């Protein structure tokens, strides 16, 4: 088990270094890497060039970049914010978590409940209604749902207090409850669009489990449909789903670009767009590296949780890779 994990992490680490280097290499190929700001003068340029090795080959620069991270905790200098990028970036994470966490913890149980309900009522009208709803929300792009909800709930029907979430200054000016109430619309939209994918998965898994022989045995030994489903089928159906739930927790850290653009959340997603529009390469490098780190971490976490939840994996773990 430990050996398998070590091997897995080793491979992940190699992948991580290679992809990060690819990002770095590509960013260094950009033609306008240095934009001298007027008034700052050459001294600043000299300093950074010395520190980040701008006159060296790219591979040496990459080494220096990593060295600076470990020795000074310095991920580079952002020219749109005029400070260290990590300082600016990691400060934005709480705002992203704030908007993502409630929809996440609402949508997971709701999705399981809805999926189970649809599976139990398979081919009845309740299932049809849920299937249509799932189909619609899986198909329509999230940004369309979000923008239309803004239009109808704020502009047309005046149900929401605002179409974007309150900023810190609005919180103090207009009161805490007003600030919280602006979160209701985005939270509902995010919840509604994140349920269908998972609900469909739960429904498919559970329907499959319900056709298996052990369910027949459970029914024939006298359990009711309900007891059989909740006592036996649901457990097995949730095994492949649980890792996804764990990965979702890591996803909370990563602010969605669309959510943050549409609802004006001052989080990491908006910072990504700012870095993109401002051509802030140091910031882009950090965000991409951090995003890659999160992705690979969640992949490892998924592996671990598979072995935790599925005994079959534990036995044959050595053969996986």
């Amino acid at each position: 088990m430990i050996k398998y994990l070590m091997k897995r992490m080793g491979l992940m680490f190699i992948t991580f270094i290679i992809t990060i280097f690819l990002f770095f290499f590509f960013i260094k190929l950009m033609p306008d890497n240095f934009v001298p700001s007027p008034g700052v003068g050459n001294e600043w340029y000299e300093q950074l060039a010395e520190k980040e090795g701008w006159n060296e080959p790219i591979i040496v620069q990459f080494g220096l970049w990593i060295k600076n991270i470990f020795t000074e905790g310095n991920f580079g200098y952002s020219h749109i914010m005029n400070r260290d990028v990590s300082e600016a970036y990691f400060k934005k994470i709480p705002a992203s978590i704030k908007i993502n966490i409630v929809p996440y913890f609402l949508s997971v149980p709701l999705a399981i409940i809805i999926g189970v309900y649809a599976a139990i009522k398979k081919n009845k009208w309740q299932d049809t209604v849920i299937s249509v709803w799932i189909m619609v929300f899986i198909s329509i792009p999230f940004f369309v749902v979000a923008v239309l909800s803004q239009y109808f709930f704020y502009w047309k029907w005046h149900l929401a207090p605002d179409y974007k979430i309150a900023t810190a200054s609005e919180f103090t000016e207009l009161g805490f409850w007003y600030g919280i109430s602006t979160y209701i619309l985005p939270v509902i939209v995010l919840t509604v669009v994140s349920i269908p994918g998972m609900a469909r998965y739960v429904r498919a898994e559970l329907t499959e489990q319900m056709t298996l022989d052990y369910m027949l045995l459970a029914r024939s030994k006298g359990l009711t449909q309900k007891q059989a489903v909740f006592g036996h089928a649901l457990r097995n159906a949730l095994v492949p789903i649980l890792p996804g739930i764990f990965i979702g927790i890591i996803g909370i850290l990563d602010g969605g670009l669309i959510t943050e653009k549409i609802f004006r959340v001052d989080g990491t997603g908006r910072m990504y767009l700012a870095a993109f529009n401002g051509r802030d390469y140091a910031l882009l490098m950090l965000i991409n590296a951090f995003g890659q780190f999160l992705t690979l971490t969640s992949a490892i976490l998924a592996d671990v949780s598979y072995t935790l939840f599925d005994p079959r994996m534990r036995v044959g773990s050595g053969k996986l890779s």
Partner: protein
Amino acid sequence: MMNINKKDLVLVYEDDKEIVDVSLESKRIGYYQDSWNRFKKNKASFVAFIIICVIMFFVVVGPYMRGYDLVNEDPIEASRLGNLVPRIPVIEKLGIFDGTKTIQAGKQFLLDMYTNEMGQGIILSGMPQALIDNPEDPAYADVNMLEVVVDHYKYTNYISSYKPERYYSIISQNEINGTNNDPLAEVKRTLNQEEFDVEIKNNTIIDILQILETQNPDDPDKPFFQYIVRINQFKSSLGTSDPSSVYFWFGTTDKGGDLFTDLWLGARISLIMALCVVSINAIVGLTIGSTVGYYGGVFDLIMDRLVEIISSIPFLSLLTLLTIRFGSATWVIVVAFTATGWIGNYRTGRMQFYRFKNREYVFAAKTLGASDARIMFKHIFPNTLGYIVTGLALSIPIFVFTEATFSFLNIIQYANVTSVGMLIQKGQAVMMQHPHLLLFPAVYISILMIAFNLFGNGLRDAFNPSLRGVE
């Protein structure tokens, strides 16, 4: 023991007749015929298929249906026709998309419009009767702004050719500040002799406000005339004096372009690119995947590592880096989508060929001396086709979805076309004043996505023979 008279036993056939299999009476149905039959039975998918066909028709024909190209011919005149609300023939009788709009405007301006000859029939409802009877009605003394329902086409014609919306506010500003701004500046056109002759010929001039005579630098004998006039906007730009005969089905954009045309142009670019990307991904991915799956060995091990690294590159990073470096030309977008996009097809191809290569019929073909290429194309490929086609049908909506999302986020910005995502993004910015700019593209993309997904699901079920008789 029964007593059977041996004489009762008769041979079923004569010695000279041979028993042969009787061929089946029923019609033979092949795999594809069967799939098609079952696909037709799935109502939702079949309707989705028809919707896709209709959308395809409009994508091909739609941009040419209106024949309206004022935006490119004369952008300034076109922008005066910007943000018109939708009006669709026939449907307008139901009271929707009838070109009416609720607007807010100054009391004096509306009163003037209601009473003067040019403004007849513009205000449809909302004008208080008391105010019409007595413009000085004391009940309305403090009211400056009124909300009325207007025929937006006539109203736009009125404010762009006769009297601008700000006419009275400019006059009162002048009184307060002592400035001398021309209240009619927005509708005045200065024409030279040639332009004037054309407008006279077309009979579009409402009135001539001023004629300026200046020295002609080329020929001092002939004077040089400039005419300051007001012209009928719709008549001069669209060639019709009656605004109620003008139909912009989906309304116009802020620049005065026809939204109907723009929407189908945007749809066309994303669908062409979808086909492009999907076919490149399919060709590259399936070729590599099937070869790897069929031959396996060291090649498989190397590709496995390579694919793991490539597939771990986040698409967002790839797309942003490429667009920063090379801009948003269509080929850049295609490269971004194909760079990691082929992995999915690679996996499908590898898995399918790996699965089928040890089947008995493949051994049989091998024993008969068939070459590898023949086995791959003739024997294995047809078996995997249903699976592959379904994958491709489902990857078109995924592309459209992703492309629209990133053009909504302004990460993809085409230079000379407006994709549907960009239309939605522009519509979102003005959704309070001009909701039609948001609603039409949003409804289009929603319908397209639902239709494609239903169609793909239907295909998947139809190509899966094991589901036969279950539904």
